């Protein structure tokens, strides 16, 4: 079964450092997403991406965040200057186009710890 893959699985970074989380969406999917989940809290939508541009972003996705699809297979989330409150599990997801709706499939997550 096709799956969304994410790297790294876990990253520890110093506050103020830049972090890039990487994702390989399912190969024929066209829509890409980042979600995050702070420990013990809900899964939160960050951003959606289609046709090389952001479709929608949440209030969480401020100027410190950016996304990019640098080539035909990768989708990245960059946090420019990490804060302690950025510590969370970050999930990449993707969806395709289908006649019966478009299921979103999630990766296993990248656990980011900011110290």
């Amino acid at each position, binding site marked *: 079964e096709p799956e969304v893959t994410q790297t790294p699985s876990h990253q520890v970074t110093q506050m103020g450092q830049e972090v890039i989380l990487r994702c390989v969406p399912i190969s024929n999917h066209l*829509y890409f*997403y980042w*979600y995050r989940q702070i420990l013990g809290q*809900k899964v939160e939508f960050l951003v959606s991406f289609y046709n090389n541009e952001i479709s*929608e972003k949440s209030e969480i996705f401020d100027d410190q965040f950016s996304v990019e699809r640098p080539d035909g297979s990768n989708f990245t989330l960059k946090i420019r200057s990490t804060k302690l409150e950025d510590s969370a599990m970050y*999930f990449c997801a993707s969806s395709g*186009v289908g006649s019966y*709706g478009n299921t*979103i499939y*999630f990766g296993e997550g990248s656990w980011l710890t900011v110290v």
Partner: protein
Amino acid sequence: LAKTTQPISMDSYEGQEVNITCSHNNIATNDYITWYQQFPSQGPRFIIQGYKTKVTNEVASLFIPADRKSSTLSLPRVSLSDTAVYYCLVGDRTGGYNKLIFGAGTRLAVHP
């Protein structure tokens, strides 16, 4: 996006059938209903999706009444490994893009 309401937690025993009901009174005509399962420190895993009536796959069934204001996820003969958080989500799927808004989900605990 339609708001969903589901029980915060449920308990069951191995071998029992578990039914988790979700209400979505403001569901729109183009909205689909999707259920995800999440284990600790893992990404949400798609379980089942439906628009109306009944949908069944190898892991679950989804029952949707005619008014579509609620839906019930049915897990037959649960095992300890079904202990997880289950999310009911509603969203427009007719176009290519859809955004999912997660609630708190239902925390299912399966006991021996």
